[in-house]
């Protein structure tokens, strides 16, 4: 399990957690999921990635880490368009730029640390040009969300789920994908990852939480209506808990799914000033969020400006 960071960006808090799957514990394999949370002043960002588990994906954990970092960085710089058409166009640009950067990064990693004899053995059955085989070794999925200029924006390649929750507890799935059979998924390492990009967006006005998870969480769910359950549960939590309290419990909530087998990772983007919850001792009241108790520039520097 591991947590990278948690920061706040104006009205939003961002957090995440990852729990290694029982199948990987049994085989002494590392957690091949990765996540990245962060925020710049106006853009909370959260990304999950799931390195492929089959033997030929010998560097999928590295591929997932690079994917989480690079997509988070791209989403932090997403365009600030505020009409639906331009929002989607911005996301397509983000996705294409991210794919290019990821492929460059994994090839650089392979050049800096050549495949070992054992890794080469695992890759021996792979067809294709050496560069294609090298990229495939880092195979991963990736799903990222951000909130910018009044829009919740999402990008996905491969399986996993993204959703958002409104103030009434209603849930909306973002980047929906056709039902897949078994363990097949689109991949960032596919021959044409650009064709596998899914983007989605919705106005953030009434949204109180956005979440994304790897398929370790999704596929462990036995109830077909689990996405709606997550929405209602997050809405309920926000009414009674702080973002920090939710973050503290996230590992424990992911653990049952991880016990089923696969690595399980989730990131949350939570609206701070929302909720029926009374402020805790020492916690600023809602109107205090606007009060310049710390000079704006300093406050921004201390707490918010955490570039990815």
């Amino acid at each position, binding site marked *: 399990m591991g947590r990278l960071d948690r920061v706040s960006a104006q009205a939003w808090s961002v957090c995440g957690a990852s729990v290694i799957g029982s*199948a990987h514990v049994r085989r002494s394999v590392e957690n091949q999921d990765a996540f990245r949370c962060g925020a710049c002043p106006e853009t909370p960002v959260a990304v999950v990635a799931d390195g492929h588990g089959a033997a*030929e994906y010998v560097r999928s954990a590295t591929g997932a880490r690079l994917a989480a970092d690079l997509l988070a960085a791209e989403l932090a710089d997403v365009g600030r368009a505020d009409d639906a058409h331009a929002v989607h166009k911005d996301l397509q640009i983000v996705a294409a730029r991210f794919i290019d950067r990821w492929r460059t990064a994994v090839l650089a990693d392979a050049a800096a640390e050549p495949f070992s004899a054992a890794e080469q053995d695992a890759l021996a059955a792979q067809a294709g040009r050496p560069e294609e085989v090298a990229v495939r070794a880092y195979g991963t999925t990736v799903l990222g969300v951000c909130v910018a200029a009044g829009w919740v924006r999402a990008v996905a390649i491969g399986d996993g789920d993204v959703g958002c929750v409104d103030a009434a507890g209603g849930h909306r799935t973002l980047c929906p994908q056709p039902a897949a*059979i078994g363990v*097949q998924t689109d991949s960032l390492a596919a021959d044409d990852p650009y064709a596998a990009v899914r983007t989605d967006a919705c106005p953030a006005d009434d949204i109180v939480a956005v979440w994304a998870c790897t398929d370790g969480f999704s596929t*462990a769910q*036995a109830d077909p209506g689990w996405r709606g*359950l997550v929405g209602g*549960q997050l809405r309920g939590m926000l009414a009674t808990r702080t973002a920090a309290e939710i973050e503290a419990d996230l590992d424990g909530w992911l653990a049952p799914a991880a016990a*089923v*087998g696969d690595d399980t990772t989730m990131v949350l983007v939570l609206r701070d000033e929302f909720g029926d919850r009374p402020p805790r001792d020492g916690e600023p009241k809602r109107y205090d969020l606007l009060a310049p108790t710390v000079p704006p520039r300093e406050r921004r520097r201390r707490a918010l400006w955490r570039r990815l």
Partner: protein
Amino acid sequence: MTDRLGGAVDRRPLHFIWILDISGSMAGGGRIQALNTAIEETLPQLREDSLDHPQAQLFVRALTFADQPAWLHQAPVPVEQFRWDRINAVPQGLTELGAAIIQLVPVMQELGRSGRGFAPVLVLVSDGRPTHANGPTLDQAMAALQAEPWGAASVRMAVGIGEDADLAALARFIDHPDRQPLRASNQTDLVTMIQWASRQASRAAANPASPDVPLATTTQPMPSGPVWDASTG
């Protein structure tokens, strides 16, 4: 106060089905005995593999066919509870493979309705050329199977026994460019190949892979001769 995120969790089902030829020719040369032995010896390995894939709940059942198809287990049985009752060949029985495959169509439809699970595994063992005296042709049956999304996605393997096995028909059943039917020429081969095919298929179904990457075929069993040799079992 909510103390969980999501609903109840569970392992995803992986359905494994043996499709076994018990036509009259299987009575000769110790073939049906070797088939029984092979399955008995494969089960412990499948149970062991199941432990390595805790995300999958492996369910096993078997379908036999000669003049008619017949399920040995109407409902899927968890591999931990599956017990093999030895089967016999049907004297003068035909090889109605198409009729057997048609039996799989409603199973695939049911999996589609449940919408959750790994791609099913179908392992065919046969020693002859398919007949269609009582049922559909192989092509008709395969078209029906592959018209079902879960049937098309199934991981299919096949083992032919002896020189009379119709490898072209078995390849039609597999219908995958990177997988070829295996031919067993003696009892030892048959045990090895059924074990190999069964484990490879179940592992392929339970392991994550992108659609661009073919099923690994690097661990081929030993090459075998063209004639079933009953003396070596």
